[in-house]
């Protein structure tokens, strides 16, 4: 029970940091710590834990969003489900490089899911504005991929120091 309360607090703090801290910084505003964290949790701790975090983070993010409730939950769940499938069936060597590819795939999926969601809900009249695909969008998208990769690399190096089983990720011989 305490574990799930901890999960709720972590999710809330991450959403808080994403919206109110990174949002105010130049360039770093493009970093998506929520997505990177979800992918990291999914890889290291498994789909079950990733599933719960996807629900919680999606729920709290919806508090600060104007998309219909449940949008972020559906998007995050779909992304971690697909990445988990790829991880178990395609990228089975568990190296840092395949995991970075997963971050790229996850970021692309997230950005285009959000773009599609905005367009569809705008056409349905549920929101007042959509995301414009212009030079700024592509610049922001590029920054997001680069920053997400940097963060994921950092997380893995930190985790390597603390979680022994992650040594396999770097294909190091013991």
């Amino acid at each position, binding site marked *: 029970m305490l574990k799930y309360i901890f999960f709720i607090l972590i999710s809330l703090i991450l959403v*808080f*940091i*994403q*919206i*109110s*801290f*990174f*949002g*105010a*910084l*130049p360039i770093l*505003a493009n970093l*998506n710590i*929520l997505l990177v964290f979800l992918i990291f949790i999914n890889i290291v701790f498994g789909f*079950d834990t990733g*599933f*719960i975090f996807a*629900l*919680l983070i999606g*729920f709290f*993010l919806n*508090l*600060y*969003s*104007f998309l219909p*409730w*449940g949008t972020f*939950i559906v998007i995050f769940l779909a992304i971690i489900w697909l990445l988990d499938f790829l991880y178990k069936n395609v990228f089975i060597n568990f190296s840092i490089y395949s995991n970075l590819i997963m971050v790229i795939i996850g970021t692309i999926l997230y950005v285009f899911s*959000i773009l599609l969601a*905005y367009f569809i809900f705008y056409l349905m009249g549920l*929101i*007042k*504005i*959509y*995301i*414009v695909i*212009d*030079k*700024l969008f592509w610049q*922001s998208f590029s920054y997001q991929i680069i920053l997400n990769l940097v963060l994921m690399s950092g997380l893995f190096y930190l985790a390597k120091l603390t979680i022994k089983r992650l040594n396999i990720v770097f294909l190091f011989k013991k």
Partner: protein
Amino acid sequence: MLEKKKNRLIKIYFVAVIILLIFLHLFKILTLPEKYLLSFFTDWQNKSISFATRLKYSFINFQEAQNLKKENTLLKGQLDQLMYENSQLNSYKSENEKLRALLNYLPGNEFDYLVVKIIGKDINRANTLLINKGSADGIKVGYPVIVDNGVIIGKIIEVQDHLAEVLLLTDKLSQLAISSLNSNKTSGLANGEYGLSIKIDLIPQDVEIKEGDIIITSGKEENIPRGLVIGKVNRVISAANELFKSATINPLVDYEELLIASVILPKKL
């Protein structure tokens, strides 16, 4: 096997709770807890943005200090020029204050204002701000948002009960009817450009507009009074064979530094 079953049950439990919370939200049963949750975090979010802004500028200031050392000699030579410009700016400031008093940017008793705190930005949209008040406080879509003494920064684009989103004027989808300080006619339409500046399109050729002109809201849009300052004209683009000319405006405030703003509300009769 048991572990798998337990995990499945936990997942089902979480999904059920989330679906229940969504339904409670849709039927407005969770309004009060949401209000308390959001207001509990508002101060911390505002402080977080303030800290991030200070962090950003401390880094920028360090870099600038390094550059200034190299430019020291050049700056000393330009000191006289800067003193002359400073005296000019002081006279503009004095003129600006008199003009604001004349404009009376909340004309008559038609409008009131609501002070709001900026608590963050939309994770998926640049050029937006999230504020801590919503429809429960009387805010509606289309209401203008101002800072300082009547400088408009954007319009309300989305509203929930206790949260609203402001679309900044520098966003591509932002549109505002404007006029020049010297004219009572609507002179054009202000659109944002790449989150950096504002461009005025559809200025008739016969409307006089030049660099340095102060651009204000025309008052022709619903709920947006005349006289809210948008910025100063930076450049005018005009071709003789075109029906309209265009101009670019520099905003008077840095949209990255905002922590407090006001939403203009129509006064209840």
